[in-house]
C-alpha cells in the first residue's frame, strides 16, 4: 500500500485511478500510522509551493516525512511534490523545501511560454529501473511554471528540453521526483508507475 499525502485541494483522484490501473493500492491520507505502515509515500502535484509546505507544517507532517525518508522509505514526488524535495523555491516568496535534493526551484525563464504545458519528450541521462520497457521516444505530460535548477547532475535520470533543460526525472537513493504527471501521461506514464511499483516491492 502506498500513502498519497493529502496537502491541498487539487486533483489527486486521477493519481489514485492511475495507481489502480497498475495494481498499486493507495490511500489518500495525512495519518502518521497509515503512512508509517505503507510501502512508499507519494507527494502529489497540486497547488503552490508555499501553500503546500505550510499545509504540511500545519499537519506536522514535514518532520515526520523527513524521518520516514531517512529510514529509507521510497518517496515519489510528482510535479510540485518533486519540487518540495529541493532546498527552496521562489514561488510566492522564497520558501524552504524538504532539502532532500541539492538545488533550487525557480520560475521558468520567459523566453518560452509559461506555464510549460503539454507533452514533451524525455532525454535519458542515466540508467534507472524506471526506464524498463520504455520506448526511446517517450512523451509525458507537463504542466508547471517553476522548475528545479542547479541540481546535482548525478541525480538526473531524465530531462526535457524547454528553453532550458528541465530536470524531468530525478533520483537519489529512495528519493524519486517526476516533474511531469505520470498519471496523465497515457501508457508511458502508467509504465513509469508500474516501474516504480517494481522498485518498491
Amino acid at each position, binding site marked *: 500500500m502506498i500513502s498519497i499525502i493529502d496537502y491541498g485541494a487539487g486533483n489527486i483522484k486521477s493519481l489514485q485511478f492511475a495507481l489502480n490501473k497498475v495494481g498499486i493500492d493507495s490511500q489518500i491520507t495525512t495519518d502518521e500510522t497509515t503512512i508509517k505502515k505503507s510501502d512508499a509515500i507519494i507527494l502529489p502535484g*497540486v*497547488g503552490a509551493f508555499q501553500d503546500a509546505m505550510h499545509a504540511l507544517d500545519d499537519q506536522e507532517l514535514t518532520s515526520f516525512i523527513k524521518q520516514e525518508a531517512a529510514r529509507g522509505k521510497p518517496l515519489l514526488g510528482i510535479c510540485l511534490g518533486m519540487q518540495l524535495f529541493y532546498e527552496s523555491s521562489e514561488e510566492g516568496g522564497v520558501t524552504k523545501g524538504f532539502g532532500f535534493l541539492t538545488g533550487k526551484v525557480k520560475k521558468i525563464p*520567459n523566453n518560452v511560454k*509559461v506555464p510549460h504545458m*503539454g507533452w514533451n519528450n524525455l532525454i535519458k541521462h542515466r540508467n534507472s529501473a524506471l526506464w524498463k520497457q520504455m520506448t526511446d521516444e517517450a512523451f509525458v505530460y507537463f504542466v508547471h511554471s517553476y522548475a528545479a535548477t542547479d541540481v546535482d547532475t548525478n541525480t538526473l535520470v531524465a530531462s526535457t528540453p524547454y528553453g532550458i533543460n528541465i530536470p524531468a526525472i530525478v533520483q537519489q537513493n529512495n528519493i524519486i521526483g517526476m516533474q511531469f504527471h505520470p*498519471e496523465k501521461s497515457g501508457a508511458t506514464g502508467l509504465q513509469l508507475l508500474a516501474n516504480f511499483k517494481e522498485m518498491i516491492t
Partner: protein
Amino acid sequence: MLTKRIIPCLDVDKGRVVKGKKFTNIQDVADPVKLAQRYNKAGADELVFYDITASNEDRDIFIDVVEQVAAEIAIPFTVGGGIRTVEDIHSVLRAGADKVSINSAAVQQPDLIEEAAKKFGKQCIVLSIDAKQTNDGRWAVYIHGGRKQTALNAVDWAEQGEALGAGELVLNAINTDGEKNGYDLDLMHAVAQAVNIPIVASGGAGKMEHFSQVLQPTYADAALAASVFHYGEIPIPALKAYLATQGITVRPS
C-alpha cells in the same frame, strides 16, 4: 521538444455528447466515457468537456461523467460550462478534472480568475473566450454561449486574463465555428502577440490543412475540434501523421 496538442471537444448535455452548429441545432452523438476512451486510444493529447446546459439538476449527472472519465482515461482533460464560483471549480477538480475553463463568469466577475488561480494554481485555470470579428476588424467578446455581446475587446481581455492568473486561453471564433473553413488565424495571431501563455484554437476545423495552418509557431499551441473527430471525418492518427510531414512536432499516436 514541446509538441502541439490535438484536443477533441465533447459538448455534454444530460450525460450525452452533442454537437451544435453555431451553438444551435444540437444533435446527439455518443456516450462521453466511450468517446473519451476512443480518443485516448487514437492519440488525442487532451480532452475538453463542456457542460452545455448546466442547469442544477443536470450538474450532478455531469459531475458523475467527469468522475467516470477520470477513472477511465490517463490523459489530461478540461471541464467547462456553467462554472460560476470557486466552489464549482473545486467540485470539478475534485471529481478528477485537471483544468477548468471559465467563460461568461470571468467576464462578469474577473476576480474569479484571480481567486481561483491563487487557490488551485494558474495551471488549472483556463480562460475561454468566444470572439466575433466586428466591422472595424477587431474582435468583440461574447458571453452566454455566443448570444450576448460585451464591450470587451478579445485581445485586451486575453491580456487581462493572463494578468489575472489564467494559465491557458481557449479562443473560440464565432464567425468560423461550425463552418469547417479553417480557424480564425488572425485572431490567434493577434492574441499570441499579446500574451505569453498557451493558446488553444477553437472553431472552424474542417480539413487537416486547417490544423497545420493554426499550429504554425505564431498562432496556437493546440487545436480543438469536435465534429470532424466525432463523425470520423478526420481520424486523429492520420491527422498526426500528416502534421508530422508538415514539420509540426506532435506526440506520435
